[in-house]
């Protein structure tokens, strides 16, 4: 196990409930979620031994000092990877290890850049763990263009593969039992992508695959953090999230092949405060189209290699559409992802190249999503996302057939 840097000024050796805040260079933001975590633990978990943990990547911007300086009435622990070791997943791994040593019953994790967190979030994400639930995913309103990887890949794929509707499988804010933390710590599917941004989808997928009791915590307020334009650089996050989904499809194939359709997941937290509308997210549609076109120039040979001939032929049609008539149909998108999953398993191309070649197609699909939903209210856009999931479910026999026995 990798070394860690631990600062435990109050010598906490046992805890019932832990709130973890993973970070990397979040000195300007971490004080607020730290304070809200403290307030939530004090207000809703009286009588429990509680602690707030900052799990960091040896930030160089004094994140640690900002964490320890934040208003906080419960004990704090700082744990970090050694300098040079990055990755959100590595932070979580340190958290799994720490909460195991502390013997915690429940663990809540919230993002360090959250601006909309309230003490009630801590309650909603933590309280179900004191009953029978093992994993709590967040459920909040997001702008229709916030979370496009969730809407177009992570949600429809995990839903149709594992049969559970968890609307925010990579939401960043979670609750899980201490028992599940120990399970995560030892699971053999951990890899380099999981150690980075693949961690969220890995935790959610394992909870679904191993039939841990899952609920969704309705958080009332929208998630407000640093918004991202989907046309902006995806960086390695896209590869790590999608790569983790594809990676887990291999060992879990005997399970997901048998899954038909999907079932709703329980919701906790109705009535915990007023529901607020999320702030707008601006999308540069010209940039989305440009990235799709550039991808077509660069990756056409890779697409021909990775996709089934019928899928590739349909994609060629899409490439010929005029910009004003551009559309990336949902059934084609489902087949593209299914074909790519098979190609990933078979190593038709180097995996990094394969996932890089998928990114422009994702931009094309996102552009189509934006155009289809631009006149829609949030509720209508949600219905559109749900309908998209049904198309993925309808197309699943194609995946099962292509995957083979």
């Amino acid at each position: 196990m990798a070394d860690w840097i631990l600062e435990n000024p109050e010598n906490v050796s046992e805890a019932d409930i832990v709130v973890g805040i993973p970070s990397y260079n979040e000195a300007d933001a971490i004080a607020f979620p730290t304070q809200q975590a403290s307030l939530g633990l004090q207000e809703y978990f009286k009588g429990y031994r509680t602690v707030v943990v900052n799990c960091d990547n040896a930030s160089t911007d004094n994140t640690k000092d900002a964490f320890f300086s934040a208003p906080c009435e419960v004990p704090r622990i700082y744990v970090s990877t050694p300098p040079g070791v990055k990755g959100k997943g590595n932070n979580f791994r340190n958290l799994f290890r720490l909460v195991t040593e502390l013997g915690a019953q429940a663990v809540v994790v919230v993002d360090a850049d959250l601006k909309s967190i309230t003490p009630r979030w801590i309650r909603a994400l933590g309280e179900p763990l004191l009953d029978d639930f093992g994993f709590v995913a967040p459920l909040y309103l997001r702008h229709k263009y916030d979370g496009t990887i969730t809407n177009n890949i992570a949600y429809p794929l995990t839903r149709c593969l594992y049969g559970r509707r968890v609307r925010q499988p990579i939401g960043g804010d979670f609750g899980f039992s201490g028992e599940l933390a120990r399970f995560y710590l030892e699971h053999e599917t951990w890899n380099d992508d999981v150690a980075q941004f693949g961690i969220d989808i890995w935790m959610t997928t394992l909870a679904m695959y191993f039939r841990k009791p899952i609920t969704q915590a309705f958080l009332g307020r929208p998630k407000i953090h640093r918004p991202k334009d989907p046309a902006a650089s995806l960086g390695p996050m896209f590869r790590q999230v999608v790569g983790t989904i594809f990676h887990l499809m291999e060992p879990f194939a005997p399970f997901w092949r048998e899954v038909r359709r999907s079932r709703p997941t329980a919701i906790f937290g109705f009535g915990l405060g007023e529901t607020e509308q999320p702030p707008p997210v601006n999308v540069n549609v010209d940039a989305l189209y440009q990235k799709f076109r550039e991808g077509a120039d660069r990756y056409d040979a890779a697409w021909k290699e990775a996709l089934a001939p019928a899928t590739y032929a349909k994609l060629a049609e899409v490439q010929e559409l005029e910009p004003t008539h551009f559309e990336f149909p949902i059934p084609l998108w489902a087949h593209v992802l299914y074909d790519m999953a098979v190609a990933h398993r078979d190593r038709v191309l180097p995996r990094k190249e394969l996932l890089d070649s998928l990114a422009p197609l994702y931009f094309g699909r996102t552009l189509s999503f934006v155009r289809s939903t631009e006149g829609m209210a949030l509720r209508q856009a949600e219905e559109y996302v749900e309908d998209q999931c049904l198309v993925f479910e309808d197309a699943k026999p194609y995946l099962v057939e292509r995957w083979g026995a």
Partner: protein
Amino acid sequence: MARILIVDDEEHIRTLYTLELEDEGHEVCALETGRNIVEHVESFRPDVVILDIKMVDVSGLDVLQEIRNRFYDLPVILCSAYGSYKGDIKSVAADYYVVKSSDLTELKRKIQQALEARIPQD
């Protein structure tokens, strides 16, 4: 064929659904209220529930919560004259949401999908 429990306060809807679904070979029980839903589910043991939302004496969304609290894996299809409740977060707990129509094609399709839903268990 399946055992289907219908909960709707409009008599002509209950009659229409009952006749059409019985024609398809299903066994149907129709209730005009969602009150005491737990007892009715325990006695009829349905494979799927078709639940109206806006009823005179009780909200279908509250009835849905009662069903979920007690019978977590029982498929429930919300069936309403209003599409607007689809935006209510409580409706997420249903398997499907269908807007009422005299053409039951969509409802029958959702019943079929709800019945074929399967997640392997240990």
